[in-house]
């Protein structure tokens, strides 16, 4: 009897999530309690455990698919020798294309893809997925240990994909993963150290950012921007706010910079984009992710359609998002997606910094502190509040001149801020 494995809910409010990784592959034997996959939000990664035992007959949702609705079938478990039901259908969604559609449309008809039965492909059964249980001969394990090889990285060619000696000997020496290396004595400082186990969020941050920094060709463009006009406008606007009540507001510099970025993105839309293998995806909406530090790491709540919102709306929305982010109460859709990120470290007084792109976005703006400094106006020396911003850009999508144009647009908006209230 084929059993459907369903998308679990991470929290009562969750309606959809990202299928981050499959830890089992089609054809793998699954026992009750085995971890099948990881479901991810930026806050947490939850493991999907098998309740039943059998063989993972078909994976319906591929790795990295976002917006998978809760309770949607994600895989089919079958019994040994049982064929995968023909009706087992994968909801179609291009994982690499961030889509505005929240719900996943199930495909109408089952593609008649011949599912290789478990018995037919014994040799191709992957060992790479065996993060939890490595299927290797005792000798292979012994040699791997001796050579410092990670068996999880080695593909087995023995019976049913078992890792045997030749596989270990053929494997080019791949060092143990960082987590294993952490226990190596060389890491320990002379004065002693404490090992803090990774939280799920730390693991996600580590993996995401490593991926981003190592796969995206980053380049950086910086510019100095005078803030005096923006700060003056901010003071004027804040002065119009009622003292109390639901209509009261207090704009922050950051709120105004979010809006400024949105306006700049509208002017130079190629920065509001994503790279995919086949095409550059230009996003209609400007959804700005704001990096928020929380005790466990960081999270990026999104101000959706920031170009269309007023400063007051942006300000109120951001306050609410940050508050709930710090309380760990964001819904997945409130921090998943986004088309552009802003990381503001101005409150820490930093002079300048550059940020790592938040994929699949194409750019992130790093905002440093505004500081009073001498500037030359015309041929006169004057004092101005200047901040340095650095745009990190995915060069596959955005070329240098475009990045420079965008920064120029951003600067002109910030320095002539009336655009923000029009």
């Amino acid at each position, binding site marked *: 009897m084929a059993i459907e494995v369903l998308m679990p809910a991470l929290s009562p409010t969750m309606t959809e999530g990202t299928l981050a990784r499959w830890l089992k592959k089609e054809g793998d034997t699954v026992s009750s309690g085995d971890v099948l996959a990881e479901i991810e939000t930026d806050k947490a990664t939850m493991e999907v455990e098998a309740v039943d035992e059998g063989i993972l007959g078909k994976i319906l949702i591929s790795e990295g698919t976002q917006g998978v609705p809760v309770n949607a079938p994600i895989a089919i478990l079958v019994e040994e020798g049982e064929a995968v039901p023909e009706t087992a259908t994968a909801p179609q969604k291009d994982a690499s294309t961030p889509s505005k559609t929240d719900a996943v449309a199930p495909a109408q008809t089952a593609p008649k893809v011949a599912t290789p039965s478990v018995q037919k492909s014994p*040799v191709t059964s992957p060992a790479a997925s065996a993060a939890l249980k490595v299927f290797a001969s005792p000798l292979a394990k*012994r040699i791997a240990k001796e050579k410092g090889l990670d068996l999880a990285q080695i593909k087995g060619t023995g019976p049913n994909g078992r890792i045997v000696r030749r596989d270990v000997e053929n494997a080019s020496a791949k060092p143990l993963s960082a987590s294993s290396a952490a226990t190596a004595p060389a890491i320990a400082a002379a004065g002693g150290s404490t090992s803090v186990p990774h939280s799920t969020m730390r693991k996600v941050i580590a993996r995401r950012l490593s991926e981003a920094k190592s796969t995206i060709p980053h380049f950086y463009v910086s510019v100095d921007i005078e803030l005096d006009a923006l700060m003056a406008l901010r003071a004027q606007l804040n002065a119009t706010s009622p003292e109390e009540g639901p209509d009261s507001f207090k704009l922050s510099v950051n709120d105004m910079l979010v809006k400024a970025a949105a306006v700049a993105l509208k002017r130079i839309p190629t920065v509001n984009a994503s790279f995919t293998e086949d095409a550059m995806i230009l996003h209609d909406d400007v959804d700005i992710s704001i990096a928020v530090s929380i005790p466990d790491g960081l999270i990026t709540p999104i101000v959706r359609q920031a170009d269309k919102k007023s400063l007051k709306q942006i300000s109120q929305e951001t306050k609410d998002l940050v508050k709930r982010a710090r309380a760990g109460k964001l819904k997945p859709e409130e921090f998943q997606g986004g088309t552009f990120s802003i990381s503001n470290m101005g409150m820490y007084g930093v002079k300048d910094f550059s940020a790592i792109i938040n994929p699949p976005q194409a750019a992130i703006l790093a905002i440093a502190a505004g500081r009073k400094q001498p500037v030359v106006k015309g041929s006169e020396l004057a004092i101005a509040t200047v901040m340095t911003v650095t745009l990190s850009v995915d060069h596959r999508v955005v070329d240098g001149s475009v990045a420079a144009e965008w920064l120029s647009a951003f600067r002109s908006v910030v320095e002539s801020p009336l655009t923000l209230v029009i």
Partner: protein
Amino acid sequence: MSQTDFDILVVGGGPGGYVAALRASQLGLSVAVVEAQHLGGICLNWGCIPTKALLRASEINHLLHDLGPYGFKADNISFDFAKVVARSRAVSKQLSSGVAHLLKKAKVPVFDGFGKLDGVTKEGKRKLLVTKEKAAPVNLTAKHVILATGARARVLPGIEPDGKLIWSYREALVPDAMPGKLLVIGSGAIGTEFASFYRNMGADVTLVEVAPRILPVEDEEISALAQKAFEKQGMKVLTNAKIGTLKKSEKDVTVPVEVNGKTENFTVDRVISAVGIVGNVENLGLEGTKIKVDRTHVVTDAFCRTGEPGVYAIGDLAGAPWLAHKASHEAVMCVEAIAGKTVHPIDITKIPGCTYCRPQVASVGYTEARAKEAGYKVRVGKFPLIANGKALAMGETEGFIKTVFDEKTGELLGAHMIGAEVTEMIQGYVIARTGELTEAELAETIFPHPTISESMHEAVLAAYGGALHF
């Protein structure tokens, strides 16, 4: 008109050929066997099986002459040698017809005759011409041809088998009478088994070996104990020995044997020549093809492929070790590769070898010396059967078991056994080698008590300093 076009044609019906056909049939391929003489090949008809039948008789003869310790007494023990031989032939015949039955059940046609490669059709299929003296030639075609024609005894000049005084294994299997005195040239598995058989049947046997020790492929310590045991049984064993020119008379042969510069003449009733084998590469149509032959064996790659696409060679024809189980394994691998399955080349260090002399000898993998030559730092364990309860109870205390481990990885590099029933036990170590077990799993394995196989466990523990009963 019967079928003449197949997916696979197998030339030779021995343990390589018929197994190839059975596996091909299992995999749904159309296949036929071409065999001129007897299904089952040398193994069933003139090798492994009939010799085991004879050796069983000689073991009984030995026991009958060694009843005292068990409390028995028997007088006038005698045997009918013709019946001993007849039983051996009957066993072969039964098995050979068993093979015929298996092939029939698998719907594999058998063409009676000699197969010869005969070019390629327009469609690129291999042509095979099947001939037999009087019968009309038959033309067959197939996408793949597996050559499995086996081997025959090597003939040395001056000691050519004459069917009368000088025997090859063939005559030695169907003797007309028990020779009183016998000289066996060559102490590989074949020579040693015949020497053991005839000695245990009561003949005066001299075993002559050109190498420094008998059973030269075995571990040195095994060879040494085998020689000691044979000599205790009354066999004369000569090593480093060279054979001079044989002098034949009507009834006997005089064999000059030179050892360390001294020559001694042995006048014997019969001589058995067991000096190796040569591959049956003749009349296969190999001439003018890209198939290479090196010293009577067809050259193949690790997957039994010859220089001609679609032509394969397996078993003795394709080279050492000359063992039926190697031929059968190659047969399966070769057919599975043709069927598109993933296969792995045979590792000869995982092929066991057995010699059914008394005491029996069995081994797999590296000898201690070869392991060291290969650069391993070894751990060696030994356990004598005298310390084993079951062996003692059976009165079979002669022998020992030796293990060779790689000190670095704990890999069981080799295992060497001499003693009662060791040929039935070596598979345990073969499984360990094939399954890539280390000393840890072997040490953790619970062996049944009381069995001789407990000595296998002890020999593992001994390599790590911990044999419990010695």
